């Protein structure tokens, strides 16, 4: 079976190259036979890679430890749930997963894209085939998932305990789906550049793909944060780790695009900028992959440790150079159909929003790369840690949050002073009111104060937008307000779904600000002894150590500590925190013992307990107790953000492009169709 998988990789390489060549040549020469062949190549490519994926999964489920990847990532007693995720838990498997999903997206694009965009499709097939071929070639020449061992071990080494968490089953594929799906808009952008059809049409074709990509990246980032919080045990969810940063970069750029694309659709402006954002987001997705797979971040000297890094570096440089040249050549064709009429307009506010998002992306990239720059230029190893990242990026984040509230309040084209006064009155009052309440309540942390009051301002903006729209529907159609709100969401999903995303962002910032009020302590407790910790919510929490128990589970030996928890003397439940010693099927210990955090989550605070270890093998245990305020709001904010994104993505009800623009063939703008009129 693994031989079949290996051969299907070679087949994928040949088919991918064929698809790329026929796509480019067929598109350039207008030859229908080659174009058709390129289209068919995307389906064949998907078929070949699907066989490779199935082959690897079969090897994993059959515990074929003659395959190096299977032996190094799994064991006979690994729970079935994690056997699935073993596919992408290592370098070789994740490359295969990446290539297979990209080929699936490429095939879906060819199948689902309507005839209206047929001119782009040969080039889209060529680009997707080329990118897939790159990943296949990395597998074949540097990271073969079907590499065999010289001998077959009795059992595998098992999966890293930290990856044996539900979060890690869903986090990587979500993030990969986000990264990978950027390739489709990128392919359309390249197709638009090559065909010189640079109006709004290509953007309409990729509208759903861009939202899908943004949504997957968002979900991937959020699940990654949740995993870090519940699994790693350091009590936080974001550490400005290079891998986290690499995922944040394309998310920021895609967020910028989702805003600026509205200006091009409505006004025919920012064509150059929007193209650059899509091209940049894709380059950043490859750049992030290079960063995390090459080892270059740890040190410039560790770069040579992974041969995969060279492949990615070559591909990154070649793709960026080719893309930039093509983009520059086509710049004269990218002329705006309208110009800005006023500095005080929705367009201008979106431009500043874009500037901040890209500035933030640059800042994160700069911080991630600065240790390498410092080592290369000055020969000095330095740490660009969370304090430095926070110092540089928190002000930018706050300004961005402020613009989230300002943007929707300013009219398109030109806002009058009277309009501005009417629009800003309620949100500003809400923000100032929140600030005063917090000051009176004794809050003094300046960033938290800013986050909460700006958050209140943004919520004021969104509520006002919903209220005005609902009242208008109420007046016009006599709809009750709850129904009117639902109708607003249903009729203009992008606008009102976008507002819900903004609420999600506010909730996230509220959660982030809560971390300023974290309290923690360590304690050594015998059974029956208690430790107390006062939270910044004013309550005193008492943790009583009830005892230690040890037992065996499927693939691990567990040492569990049980604690009774009281708030101001009242019983609120029990917490359990564990040490897990993983073993293989033969009972051999495989990894160092890992820690399972005990978490009691609430609206105000999370109680977070870590079992550090035992004293001299007795039941006397060392614990770390942490009270993390408002963490629940981070997860809830993420949920709201995803719901908003899904509303935007949901088919129908969204603004529809209208044919017949004299300038471009596609109108620079959109119209709303009401159900009753259809």
């Amino acid at each position, binding site marked *: 079976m693994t031989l079949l998988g290996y051969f299907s990789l070679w087949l994928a390489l040949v088919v991918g190259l064929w698809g790329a060549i026929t796509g480019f040549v067929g598109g350039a020469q207008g030859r229908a036979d080659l174009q058709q062949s390129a289209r068919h190549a995307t389906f064949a490519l998907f078929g070949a890679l699907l066989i490779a994926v199935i082959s690897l999964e079969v090897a994993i489920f059959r515990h074929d430890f003659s395959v190096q990847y299977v032996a190094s990532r799994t064991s006979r007693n690994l729970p079935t749930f994690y056997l699935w995720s073993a596919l992408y838990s290592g370098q070789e498997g994740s490359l295969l997963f990446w290539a297979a999903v990209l080929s699936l997206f490429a095939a879906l694009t060819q199948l689902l894209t309507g005839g209206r965009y047929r001119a782009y499709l040969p080039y889209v097939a060529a680009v997707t085939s080329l990118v897939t071929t790159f990943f296949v070639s990395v597998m074949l020449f540097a990271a073969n998932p079907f590499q065999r061992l010289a001998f077959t071990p009795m059992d595998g080494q098992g999966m890293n305990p930290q990856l044996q968490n539900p979060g890690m089953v869903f986090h990587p594929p979500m993030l990969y789906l986000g990264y990978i799906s950027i390739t489709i808009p990128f392919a359309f952008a390249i197709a638009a550049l090559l065909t010189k059809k640079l109006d709004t049409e290509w953007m309409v074709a990729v509208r759903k793909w861009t939202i899908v990509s943004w949504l997957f990246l968002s979900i991937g980032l959020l699940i990654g944060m949740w995993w870090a919080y519940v699994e*790693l*045990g*350091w*009590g936080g969810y974001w550490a400005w*780790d290079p891998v986290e940063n690499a995922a944040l970069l394309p998310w920021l750029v895609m967020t910028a695009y989702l805003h600026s694309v509205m200006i091009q659709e409505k006004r025919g402006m920012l064509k150059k900028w929007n193209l650059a954002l899509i091209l940049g987001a894709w380059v950043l997705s490859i750049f992030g992959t290079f960063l995390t797979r090459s080892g270059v971040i740890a040190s410039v000297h560790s770069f040579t440790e992974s041969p995969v890094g060279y492949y990615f570096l070559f591909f990154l440089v070649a793709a960026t150079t080719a893309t930039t040249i093509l983009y520059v050549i086509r710049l004269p064709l990218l002329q705006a159909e309208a*110009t800005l*009429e*006023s*500095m005080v307009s929705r367009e201008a506010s979106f*431009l*500043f929003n874009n500037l901040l998002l890209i500035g933030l992306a*640059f800042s994160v990239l700069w*911080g991630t790369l*600065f240790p390498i720059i*410092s080592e290369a230029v*000055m020969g*000095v*190893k*330095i*740490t660009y*840690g969370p*304090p*430095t990242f926070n110092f540089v990026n928190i002000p*930018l984040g706050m300004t961005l949050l402020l613009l989230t509230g300002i943007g929707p309040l300013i*009219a398109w*084209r030109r806002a009058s002073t009277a309009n501005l006064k009417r629009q800003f009155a309620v949100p500003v009052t809400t923000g100032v009111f929140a600030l005063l309440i917090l000051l009176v309540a004794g809050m003094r942390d300046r960033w938290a104060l800013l986050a909460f009051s700006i958050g209140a301002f943004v919520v004021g903006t969104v509520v006002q937008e919903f209220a*005005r729209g609902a009242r*208008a*529907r109420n*007046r*016009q159609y006599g709809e009750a307000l709850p129904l009117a709100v639902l109708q607003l969401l249903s009729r203009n999903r992008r606008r009102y779904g976008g507002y819900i995303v903004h609420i999600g962002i506010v909730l996230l910032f509220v959660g982030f600000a809560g971390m300023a009020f974290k309290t923690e302590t*360590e*304690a*050594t407790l*015998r059974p029956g002894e208690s430790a107390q910790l006062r939270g910044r919510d004013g309550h005193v929490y008492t943790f009583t150590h009830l005892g*230690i128990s*040890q037992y065996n589970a499927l693939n691990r030996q*567990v*040492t569990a500590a049980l604690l009774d928890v009281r708030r101001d003397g009242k019983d609120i439940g029990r917490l359990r925190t564990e*040490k897990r*010693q993983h073993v293989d099927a033969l009972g051999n210990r495989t990894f160092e*013992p890992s*820690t399972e955090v005990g978490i009691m989550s609430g609206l105000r605070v999370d109680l977070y307990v870590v079992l*550090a*270890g*035992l*004293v*001299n*093998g*007795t*039941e*006397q*245990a*060392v614990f*770390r107790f942490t009270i993390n305020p408002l963490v629940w709001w981070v997860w809830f904010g993420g949920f709201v953000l995803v719901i908003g994104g899904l509303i935007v993505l949901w088919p129908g009800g969204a603004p529809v492009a209208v*044919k017949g623009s004299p300038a471009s063939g596609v109108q620079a703008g959109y*119209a*709303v169709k*009401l159900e009753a*009129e259809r």
Partner: protein
Amino acid sequence: MTAGVSRREFFVVAIGAAGAVLQDTTSVGQVYDPERAGRAQAPVTAADNDKNVQALEKRLRCSCGCGLDIYTCRTTDFTCTYSPALHKQVLAMLGDGKSAQEVIDAFVAQYGQVALMSLPRRGFNLLGYFVPGVALLVAALGLVWMLKRWTRESGAAAPVMPAAPPDASPAELEQLRRELDRLPG
């Protein structure tokens, strides 16, 4: 019984000792397999929990490669052998009467700037702090200049445009969209 110790005193001491032993064995009995719980931990001392020590250790990076500060690493990654050793080093220096800054300076002298979680704000490192902000500022100024140019061009190209569109309610805008949608083509 020896002279000087009465029978009563002997029994009181003996019962007390037995009670202490019984108390100790019932409350902190041995677990079945200590190795399952990882490396044995020493009881937490007042110095371990000292807020000043914690604050100091949060400014120093653990050298195990985890990217965390010493305090977070030693209270998170219980397999790390570096952070407990670095913690002891911090306590020893403080015990020798060094101030927090002197401890930090000693760490930098021994391990280099990489030992600091926060980049020192001097020399080349200033680029690390201020390049993003300066770049953003320059870009913002450029954007303002560009927007002004665009608005000037717009004004010159369409001088007969009204100063501002009339403020329309959402209902009016929706009505307008419906009318536009009815237009052929």
